[in-house]
């Protein structure tokens, strides 16, 4: 415990240089603006920042990325409250009560609640990051090829199940992502697969250009295809958070923080699910259920605490398992690898200081959003009114730069363009992007683990089902899939209600 605190303070002191603080403040601001502008997502912001920071030392680059990530998730609440348009998908739940408060002339109070909820959510997630990373890291040491195979499968399946509103399409996107990861030379024999004679494809599809395309170029096309609408913002009261609002709903804050962190840890699920789950749990437990959706302080607090707590939560599996908890965390993982940080089960043995560095980065980011939350309300309104026709061309130029800068080759720009068009088409047909990204990230782990496991067992499939952890993970994967089959779902619901009734009678 004391070692952890000392590690945290030592890391925090390490960032107390003018350059690091300037980077942190600048990137929090960039994230805040990116998040607030509907159409620009946290994933896109973090991906573009990855390319901007490619020549910086690892710690400073990751500080910038984490501040951008936290800032963007928080910034999304501003347009949700003021415009009833979520700046990022994570803020969709905040529209319900945030905008209702704004319509009552309490937009300032709503922004104050969003600020306090986001900061407290980040802190709860940050504490979980500090405490659970070593524990999960130790657990991960027990993972072998069989467990990692199921972990990768579970990530894609659960992400497909929970993101979007059609699990089948989510799984298809996820499996397509896994397939994309197999393009290029295979790991055992360096045999070219699906390269069609293109030398550039031998190295495979790089994650960052694919992400910049799927989240950047596809967003540009999505925004540009709609005619712009006039932005009208009402007057508002003070944005300074009220202590009473926090104290009155402290249980909601803690519950939402824990839910958000827990959902963050689940591979590939992300902040929007965290916000909705926290909101739903708060509504179930609330004494003022009737106020939800009509300007409930508790509802807004729950959504904002949940989505921001998810950010540190999503970083926990990145550090311990090299598996991202959300789409922006997938970019963070890629950035860590680019900068020579090797996250995974050995991180607490090889590089424990880095874990505390990440905790300190989260803390700095939370201070940044608090600062901007209190001071930047009026300039942000100006930014929100800035025409999209002026912003989107610049974003596309940044997409081109971003995809080129990683390896300095035009091939990556073409990858970005292809993924932008594919991503746009898939979105139009209601296919979520998060499982696709997770599939690309986890494809390598899944394939290596499957083939390594089969080599170890000489082609015997049994160890994939008989080792304890592998068996539990297989049951989880099978349950997630089977519960989406209507007949199984009905049978499970009936059995569950029967068990609950029997439990109630026994009680």
């Amino acid at each position, binding site marked *: 415990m004391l070692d952890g605190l000392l590690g945290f303070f030592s890391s925090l002191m390490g960032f107390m240089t003018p350059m690091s603080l300037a980077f942190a403040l600048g990137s929090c601001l960039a994230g805040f603006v990116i998040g607030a502008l509907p159409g620009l997502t946290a994933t896109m912001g973090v991906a573009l920042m990855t*390319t*901007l920071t490619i*020549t*910086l030392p690892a710690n400073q680059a990751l500080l910038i990325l984490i501040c951008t990530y936290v800032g963007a998730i928080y910034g999304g609440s501003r347009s949700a409250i003021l415009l009833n348009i979520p700046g990022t*998908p994570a803020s*969709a739940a905040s529209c319900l009560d945030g905008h209702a408060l704004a319509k009552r002339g309490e937009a300032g109070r709503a922004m104050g609640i969003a600020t306090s909820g986001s900061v407290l959510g980040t802190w709860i997630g940050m504490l979980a990051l500090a405490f659970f990373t070593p524990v999960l890291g130790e657990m991960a040491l027990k993972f072998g090829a069989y467990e990692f195979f199921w972990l990768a499968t579970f990530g894609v399946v659960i992400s497909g199940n929970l993101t*979007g*509103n*059609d699990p*089948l*399409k989510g*799984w*298809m996107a996820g*499996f*397509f992502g*896994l*397939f994309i990861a*197999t393009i290029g030379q*295979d790991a*055992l*024999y360096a*045999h070219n*697969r*699906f390269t069609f004679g293109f030398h550039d494809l031998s190295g495979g599809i790089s994650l960052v250009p694919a992400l910049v395309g799927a989240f950047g170029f596809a967003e*540009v*096309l999505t925004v*540009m*295809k*709609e*005619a712009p609408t006039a932005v009208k913002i009402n007057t508002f009261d003070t944005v300074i958070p009220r202590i009473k609002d926090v104290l009155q709903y402290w249980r909601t804050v803690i519950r939402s923080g824990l839910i958000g962190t827990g959902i963050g840890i689940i591979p590939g699920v992300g902040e*929007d699910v965290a916000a*909705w789950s926290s909101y739903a749990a708060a509504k179930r437990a609330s004494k003022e259920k009737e106020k939800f959706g009509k300007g409930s302080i508790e509802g807004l607090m729950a959504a904002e605490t949940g989505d921001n707590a998810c950010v540190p939560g999503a970083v926990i599996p990145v550090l311990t398992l090299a598996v991202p908890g959300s789409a922006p965390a997938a970019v963070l993982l890629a950035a860590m690898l680019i900068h020579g940080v090797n996250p995974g089960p050995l991180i607490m043995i090889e590089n424990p200081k880095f874990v505390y560095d990440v905790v300190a980065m989260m803390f700095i980011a939370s201070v940044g959003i608090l600062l901007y939350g209190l001071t930047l309300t009026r300039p942000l309104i100006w930014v929100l009114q800035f*025409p999209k*026709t*002026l912003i*989107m*061309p*610049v974003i*596309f*130029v940044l997409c*081109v*730069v971003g995809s*080129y*800068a990683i390896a*300095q080759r*035009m091939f990556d*720009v*073409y990858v970005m*363009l292809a993924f932008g*068009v594919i991503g746009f088409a898939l979105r*139009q*047909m*209601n296919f979520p992007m998060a499982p696709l990204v997770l599939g690309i990230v986890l494809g390598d782990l*899944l*394939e290596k683990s*499957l*083939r390594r496991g*089969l*080599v170890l067992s000489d*082609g015997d499939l049994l160890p994939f089902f008989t080792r304890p952890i592998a068996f539990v993970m297989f049951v989880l994967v099978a349950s997630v899939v089977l519960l989406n089959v209507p007949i199984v779902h009905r049978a499970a619901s009936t059995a569950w209600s029967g068990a609950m009734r029997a439990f109630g009678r026994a009680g």
Partner: protein
Amino acid sequence: MDDEKPSPFADLLTGAAWLAVSVAIAIGAWNMDRLERLASTWHTAPGLVPGMLGVALIFMSGILITRALRGGALQQIELPRIVFADHWRLIVSLSIGLFYAIFLVARGLPFWVASAIYISVMVFVFQFPERREAGQLVRGAVIAVIYGIIMSLAIHYLFQDLFLVRLP
């Protein structure tokens, strides 16, 4: 989370496209060199995982098609019509974007010049209806050019000079 769902017929077409891609993946994986001369076995063959994924995608595409058919896809056949007037914003932004990336940037035009041209054209084209209505076409063109030059130089400075990132 509350996205609008596509029609069953749209899902049917999507499912058919997915099926074609999945079958191609499975066939490509099946025909892939199994490297037996290198003592590779079935479980180390390079086509194993792509093949499994292809089969899984065929299965899921089949479910998507079946679901669309059961949802009445064949009763609501409506072939998509691309009307330029309805989709001009998408077609124009896609075309100009591709032209900028594939021809202007890739063919060696200085990056800041290519970007300035792209941004200016995009701004001018997409502000054209309002500018024409207000009788400010020349003003709009000048503003678009100035904005394009300023933004492209700012990006150039930020990446190349401040953060030392190489540009195309």
